[in-house]
């Protein structure tokens, strides 16, 4: 059974990494022929970097838009971020100092993550406009993340699993030498759903993760009068 999970995570990791790499390569290869930053936009590269940081870390545009959605999604994303960073400890030994320091925050961040997800789910069900635009997959993603969060938090705070064995497994699963995974149902649910998430991410709307960095309305410098912007296919048009 443990080797099935080892295989599952090897495949899931490969799919996640290669799938995301494929999309990142695709996005970076497709040209953006026109200057289309949503203005007012920064007029320097540095300004664009700052705009992107505000967008990715603070969700600036969403904040301008709808406070409830912003609160829930920011709680969820920041919670998830801390939780993920905390989980690094299961893959390395010795555990780096920053990861040690973040441990207590990473534990309680699970509640922020779960509360945020719950808020987003409630919003999706009860706001008519959001319900209208939702496909089954939009609900399933929230449920999947909720179950991952709930099962994880339960293991952290209520029914502990053998984390030492889990860590041994994950430090050696690449070579199938990590030993046995505890056959704890909560753990197995948690891990299975994480693997599902990793497998589906590159084929789903979770592509907003790389997508945001490539969004021309956010990542372009507002300098079209100062600097001529011309992509290859447009240049060819001039030659013909």
């Amino acid at each position, binding site marked *: 059974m443990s080797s099935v999970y080892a295989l599952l995570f090897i495949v899931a990791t490969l799919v996640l990494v290669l799938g995301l790499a494929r999309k990142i390569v695709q996005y970076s290869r497709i040209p953006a022929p026109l200057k289309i930053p949503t203005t007012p936009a920064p007029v320097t590269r540095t300004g664009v970097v700052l705009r992107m940081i505000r967008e990715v870390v603070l969700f600036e545009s969403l904040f301008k838009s709808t406070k409830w959605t912003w609160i829930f999604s920011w709680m969820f994303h920041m919670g998830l971020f801390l939780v993920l960073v905390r989980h690094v400890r299961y893959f390395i030994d010795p555990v780096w100092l920053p990861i040690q320091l973040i441990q207590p925050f990473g534990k309680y961040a699970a509640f922020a993550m779960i509360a945020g997800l719950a808020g987003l789910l409630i919003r999706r069900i009860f706001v008519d*406009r959001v319900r209208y*635009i939702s496909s089954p997959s939009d609900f399933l993603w929230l449920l999947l993340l909720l179950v991952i969060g709930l099962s994880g938090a339960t293991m952290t705070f209520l029914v502990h699993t053998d984390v030492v064995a889990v860590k041994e497994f994950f430090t050696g699963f690449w070579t199938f030498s990590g030993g046995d995974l505890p056959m704890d149902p909560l753990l197995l649910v948690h891990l299975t759903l994480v693997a599902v998430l990793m497998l589906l991410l590159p084929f789903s709307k979770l592509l907003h993760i790389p997508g945001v960095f*490539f969004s021309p309305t956010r990542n372009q410098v507002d300098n079209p009068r100062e600097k001529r912007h011309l992509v290859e296919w*447009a240049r060819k048009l001039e030659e013909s």
Partner: protein
Amino acid sequence: MAGAEFETPELTEFIEVPKLVEGTMEHVTCFVAKPEHQEPLGFPGEKVENWKEVAIDKMGDLLSRYRSFQVFMDACVKCGSCTDKCHYYLGTKDPKNMPVGRQDLLRKVYRRYFTFAGKYFPKLVGAADLTDEVVDEWYSYFHQCSQCRRCSVFCPYGIDTAEISMAAREILDSIGVGQKYCNEIIGKVHKIGNNLGLPGPAIEDTLEGLEEDVYEEDEVAVKYPLDVKGADILLVTPSADFFAEPHVDGLIGYGKVFHEAGVSWTLSTKASEAGNFGMFIGSYENMRRVSLRIREAALELGVKRIVFGECGHAWRVAYSFLNTLAGPFDFLDPDYPVPQHICEFTLNEIEKGTLEFDKSENDDMSITFHDSCNVARATRMGDKPGGQFDIPREVIKAVVNNYHDMEWDTIHERTFCCGGGGGLLTDDLMEVRVKGAKPRMTAFKNVMEEKGVTHLAAICAICKSQFTKVFPYYGMDMFQIVSVHQLVSNAIVLNRKTPPEEAPGYGEDDDDE
């Protein structure tokens, strides 16, 4: 269909987000382009037989040429942030007029034909086959988007429905289902040089008329030159400025500013149109062809600078795209930005102290300023981000005594579109235009009631035409819309007196002398 009866929405105290009602705008459609409108633009004359294949191929082509389109198709998480931001949704309650609702009409087909999940689990991810019904839906709803970009301000990934509408219209054009309004107009520009199809002599006539009018009123011979070689400045302005109210009052104003600034300038018959409808239909090729006329005119006339008149979408193409489409402009004076907006020019002269104003000439009005969508969210004026908000307001405040802004969440980058932009300014879309104007009308009515504002100033030909038409539906007067340079024109003191022999018609009929 066109001209159908509809009810004008009632204005409420606040801009309210309505409960959605499906299908309220399903019946809306606009006239389809005829072969003679399609073919000169390089599109098939009629719906092609293998339209499905052609449409999917075109979508694939656009996905590979426009990063925006590919990223925007993938990145949406259906968070709902945009759902209450579109003026057409707020005015019609139709969920397919929510930005994401509109995008999904295209996205469901993208998912079906271009993604793993959509190919194998279409129901799960909301993917759908491309059918005749879907094409009809595209035609209807992608002509209910004014490409105003308000949604893109509030999207956490910057997804811009304008980009998606442009892509959809280009796909429709590629299968032979174009919109008559836009494509006929683009044809006129290619052939004659402006959207209205005004030939050179008609423009010349109009300009002479303006010279006479100004002379009659002010006894100063302000010139409105056309095709003058060797002039310093080429003014490119929307063709509506040549005859429509209140546009023409703006043109009179530009002329007076140039006169007082003491610069030599000219209009051009070849570049007698600032607007570029090639953008509305998403066609890079057509947009480029239209833009190249301006380059050619600048070269032929040997000007040193290019200045654009008051026009919103035109300013987007001019500011953001002209250098790309028709550059490089290394043959122009490098001391000035290419192109420059007339408001930049005027404010610059105000700051230099060359212009004198008598603000009391505008005391019969109290003004508010409507930020035109494309100027606000797709361009800049001046050196600093946000100059597109400050510069027109500074010009207005220099020439009027009474000025008040509308509510903060309806101006600047949050401004509401007039409801007629992006290729919708046609009578067959009147229902969309009137309903889409509702949020702007609400904000305007509030500032009228609370601050005693009487007039709305704008720097966009489409906004001006749209408000002229739409104000009466909401119980307002069509003359409540004014050009910014109309206000300048009213207040400017013409200090550069001209010798009598420069007066229009001097020496022609000596009997009167």
